[in-house]
């Protein structure tokens, strides 16, 4: 018995899970605080969660270049995980900043919103740092279940209910595939540890041609591609993004996508590196399909939130290009792109938070007529984010796309890079159309604008700083992304 306790304690290494541990402590603390808060007072909770995210940020940065392993090979806080942890924290921070006022305005000042955001972030961290399929799976579930709740948070709004229910049903469905893939890989390699699967497969070369390995890989990939929203597993994205509360959509489009990419990259490169020829040709097709369907469908949207949903599908396609290339530039390009995408997309959604009307979000293209004159600051901010999403220099979007396509060309995927650039050109149309409405249309009469509030403005300003910083001096962050590779 003594012996067992010793063995259990030997595996414990708190340093390896420190960031998520701090987040969970703050989350649980907030849950208790909420009990004693008067109903509808959530500002304190939002400030405490911002503090929690800031503390975690410091803890996370201290882990840079100090890799920690622990818990019998279940978790590795390497630079790769730390880079992604920073992305999740930035996404959560910007989201919390814009949420408080929005929740009050829409009449759902739910204090539990903030702990749920913190737990979601912790789940994303476990996905990025998990080195065992079990940890990755549980992280994914913590992330998904909190997101189902957050998407359906506005209980009285049918749109929000629909978003939550739809996300839940399709999410649980994809979990089934993910698990089946895991089970088959476990049967093939006799372990669920990602690195051990890789060792086993390289030691037993004939297992690579084993149909069960291929089936396991495909089913596992389906589960993650669903979370990333890659065609043909993108069906849920537009409806869920449109129906969920805007700050939740902002978070959903950045955090979970990056987390799923982190897990997918780790599994494909470390665990299934021997099958690279198989998965890269598969992802090649999916990347092209995703870019085209995302961009072409976005052209037909009249609701800006829905348009951004399709644009997020297209951006997932660009990031997949880096994974197809699977070389140092491509993979670090994904890391850089996810960071850049977090800033530009959350920034765009933060503008939408202030552009909407109370109750019904007035987010049609028509509603944006003359927006740039009536609200000069928001107009300029939106333009910057749209330029970044298009990939125009000197913004983060340009640098990100540059690295990813450079990676593809280095790896010999010239056509893929050409198709990617072609798609960026298609996307110009629908992003520019928003700007045409903002600056070249007559403003609508008598429009109940939402008042500005400091939290959201700070969030927008931070996002602008991020977008411009990453665009003007991308070299330093790119160096860090290269150091983050395993």
């Amino acid at each position: 018995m003594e012996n067992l306790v010793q063995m259990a304690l030997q595996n414990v290494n708190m340093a390896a899970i420190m960031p998520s541990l701090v987040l969970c402590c703050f989350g649980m603390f907030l849950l208790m605080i909420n009990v004693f808060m008067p109903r509808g007072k959530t500002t304190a909770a939002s400030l405490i969660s911002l503090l929690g995210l800031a503390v975690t940020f410091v803890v996370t940065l201290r882990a840079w270049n100090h890799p920690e392993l622990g818990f019998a090979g279940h978790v590795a806080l390497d630079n790769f995980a730390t880079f992604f942890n920073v992305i999740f924290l930035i996404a959560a921070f910007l989201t919390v900043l814009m949420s408080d006022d929005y929740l009050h305005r829409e009449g759902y000042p739910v204090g539990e919103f903030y702990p749920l955001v913190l737990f979601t972030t912790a789940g994303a961290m476990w996905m990025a740092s998990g080195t065992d399929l079990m940890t990755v799976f549980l992280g994914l579930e913590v992330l998904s279940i909190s997101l189902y709740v957050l998407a359906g948070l506005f209980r009285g709004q049918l749109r929000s209910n629909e978003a939550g229910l739809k996300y839940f049903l399709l999410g649980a469905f994809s979990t089934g595939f993910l698990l089946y893939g895991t089970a088959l890989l476990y049967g093939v390699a006799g372990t669920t540890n990602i690195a051990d699967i890789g060792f086993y497969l390289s030691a037993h070369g004939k297992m690579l041609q084993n149909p069960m390995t291929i089936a396991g890989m495909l089913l596992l990939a389906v589960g993650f591609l669903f979370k990333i929203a890659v065609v043909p597993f993108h069906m849920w994205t537009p409806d869920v993004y449109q129906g969920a509360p805007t700050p939740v959509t902002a978070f959903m489009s950045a955090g979970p996508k990056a987390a799923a990419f982190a897990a997918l990259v780790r599994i494909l490169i470390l665990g299934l590196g021997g099958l690279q020829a198989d998965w890269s040709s598969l992802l090649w097709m999916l990347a092209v399909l995703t870019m085209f369907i995302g961009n072409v469908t976005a052209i037909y949207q009249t609701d800006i939130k829905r348009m951004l949903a399709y644009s997020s599908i297209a951006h997932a396609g660009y990031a997949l290009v880096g994974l197809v290339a699977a070389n140092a530039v491509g993979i670090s390009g994904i890391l850089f792109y996810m960071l850049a995408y977090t800033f530009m997309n959350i920034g765009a959604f933060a503008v939408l938070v202030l552009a909407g009307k109370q109750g019904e979000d007035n987010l049609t293209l028509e509603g944006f007529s003359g927006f740039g004159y009536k609200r000069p600051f928001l107009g300029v901010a939106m333009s910057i984010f749209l330029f970044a999403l298009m990939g125009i220099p000197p913004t983060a979007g340009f640098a990100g796309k540059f690295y990813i396509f450079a990676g593809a060309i280095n790896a010999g995927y010239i056509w893929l890079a050409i198709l990617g650039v072609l798609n960026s050109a298609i996307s110009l149309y629908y992003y520019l159309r928003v700007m045409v409405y903002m600056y070249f249309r007559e403003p609508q009469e008598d429009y109940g604008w939402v008042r500005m509030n400091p939290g959201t403005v700070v969030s927008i300003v931070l996002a602008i700083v991020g977008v411009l910083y990453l665009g003007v001096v991308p070299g330093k962050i790119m160096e860090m992304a290269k150091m983050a590779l395993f």
Partner: protein
Amino acid sequence: MEVLFFYLVALVAVLSGLIVVTAKSPVNSALALVNTFFCLAVFYVMLHAPFMAAIQIMVYAGAIMVLILFVIMLLNMGVEPHKKPTHIAWGAIGGTLVLLVSILFIQRGDTARAVGNISKDVVLREGHTALIGKAMFVDFLLPFEIASILLLVAIVGAVILAKKEV
């Protein structure tokens, strides 16, 4: 004898699975699903995993299905109105594809040789529950703790969604 028993239980499992998928009334689906759970518990016993069989019954049949039945009753759902089946084609294509691919791949595939030393004798000697406990708290401590956060999130989420006023 064992083979015959396997096929018998497998037949019951597949038939009740079929009822889950096709029954018109949700209550019938739920009861058939409970039946499938029991069949699977029988398989777990045959695979020398009695503890898993026990929690299969307690957690799945006991907790989750009761919750589902409770909600079916709460929402007072009757028989589904007969509508034109639009997704049947999709479902048939998807289902058959998954079935063919997985059976084909499994039939031609090969699993790893035994990697551990947990055989039937070890399970009988040490006890299945003890083995599970050892594995869970020595090697799988972190997933266990994450599962606790997962359940916490689920509780908080269910309360704030289902309560009329928060």
